[in-house]
């Protein structure tokens, strides 16, 4: 009943209310039912919050929310000094941004390799996909950091970037390949019959039709890359999760800091999703 629809207002989606009036509902019943659903959601969240609070109280956890301000930033002599959390999220953004670009590149190349007639291209692409998909991300990260990084002389930041890019690239490759193969056969044939070169065929006929199929899942992938980037904290790249861990070992404020870190990821990814949704709606209108 509650379908997630891109044009739905965010609040409605968060609460799982579809915001669409069912045809036979009188308006008042519709409003009453929506309100009841909102109430249910608030009740559930309330119970959860209370459980956490009560649990913490039972452990005699001492909440120290008043101390968290400086973790974000301090102002000393009128000068803005970013704290560890701001620094961390900037590194996370950098990490995710660079890996995104690389993973799209890797994905596109792998997709091309898999679809090509060249045996070398196909076997390299398939080997890469099989290795990445059938080993744990954590092990891949250790491989990059402890084996490849010393050999090629790359630092921990770039080891993290490359590992994430290789990991997400394998998913991007399948998304891109799926989009391209979803274009009707007749389109390939018409392009061939016109005598277009292979490059022109893809550039002017196939890719423009595949892009609307590729972009939504690809943006979803890139947003989830932000979350996956937390894993590079195990090689101590100073991104958000690492900074959170450091703060906790300094202050023992585990509860506050984990809530804040999770909240920061949440704000980042949901605001990106909203931006992408708006963009998609605009693109659809333009067409």
């Amino acid at each position, binding site marked *: 009943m509650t379908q997630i629809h891109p044009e739905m207002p965010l609040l409605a989606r968060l609460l799982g209310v579809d915001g669409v009036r069912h045809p036979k509902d009188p308006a008042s019943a519709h409003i009453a039912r929506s309100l009841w659903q909102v109430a249910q959601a608030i009740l559930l969240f309330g119970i959860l919050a209370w459980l956490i609070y009560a649990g913490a109280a039972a452990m005699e956890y001492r909440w120290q929310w008043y101390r968290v301000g400086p973790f974000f930033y301090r102002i000393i002599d009128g000068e803005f000094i970013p704290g560890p959390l701001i620094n961390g999220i900037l590194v996370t953004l950098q990490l995710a941004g660079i890996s995104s670009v690389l993973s799209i590149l890797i994905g596109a190349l792998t997709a091309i390799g898999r679809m090509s007639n060249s045996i070398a291209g196909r076997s390299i692409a398939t080997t890469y996909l099989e290795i990445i998909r059938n080993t744990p991300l954590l092990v891949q990260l250790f491989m990059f950091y402890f084996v490849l990084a010393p050999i090629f002389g790359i630092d921990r930041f770039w080891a993290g970037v490359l590992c994430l890019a290789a990991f997400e690239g394998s998913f991007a490759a399948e998304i891109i390949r799926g989009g391209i193969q979803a274009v*009707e056969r*007749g*389109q390939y*044939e*018409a*392009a*061939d*019959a*016109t*005598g*277009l*070169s*292979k490059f*022109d065929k893809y550039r*002017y*006929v196939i890719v*423009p*039709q595949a892009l609307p199929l590729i972009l939504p899942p690809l943006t979803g992938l890139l947003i989830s890359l932000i979350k996956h980037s937390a894993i590079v904290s195990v090689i101590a790249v100073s991104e958000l999760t690492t900074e959170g861990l450091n703060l906790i070992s300094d202050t023992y404020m585990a509860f506050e800091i984990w809530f804040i870190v999770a909240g920061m990821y949440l704000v980042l990814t949901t605001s990106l999703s909203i931006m992408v949704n708006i963009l998609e709606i605009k693109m659809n209108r333009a067409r």
Partner: protein
Amino acid sequence: MSNTSARPQPDPDTLIAFEGVGKWFDQFQALKDINLSVKQGARVVVCGPSGSGKSTMIRCVNQLENHQQGTIHVCGREVYGNMKQLEQVRREVGMVFQSFNLFPHMSILQNVTLGPIRNSNLSRSEADDIALHYLERVQIADQADKFPSQLSGGQQQRVAIARALAMKPRVMLFDEPTSALDPEMINEVLDVMTELADDGMTMMVVTHEMGFAREVADRVVFMDEGRIEENCGKTEFFAGGRGERAQAFLSKILQH
């Protein structure tokens, strides 16, 4: 096979020449020992029951399907393997499909100009002129700025014909160009094809429109089970100088 490709065709008037062509889909042989030549200006209609290999044969001409046996020469060049040479051949051969296959993300005008711009390095305005000329010829120039989905089937098919013509091909291939159309639109497409024939275009047409064959064809090829069973002049074909199977097939499709 490939060392014969440079050899000039014995008869420069022959635009398409099949010699002993065989084609397999895995184990299944779809074409058996096809021999056929299409001369400049010829209008060959190909008919036969469903699954007899008509599409497969016509698609071998521009290698949308590749054959495994025998040789096919188009405009004097052997079509096989070499991509660059194949692209050249494909530019001399226009093709019209049953399902139109227009590019849905491009306007009608762009559909027609894509080939000329990318293949012949024409400027946009030169290509636009050519495209409008051919769109006028199929009487659809007034729709140039629309998109394929906004046109009726008959209109789309006429655009597809203009798109193929814009490459100034020497041969046009049609694979059941009217069988996806509503009955009232069939004639607008057949009329365009008849005009093309009157202008001397060399054509190979897979169709069950026997009225069109009677009016336009000079040869009729009848296929059955991957073989060419009949290949004769139109008058001969319709006068009954044909084998049993062709007879049975004809009476079946002429009934309705």
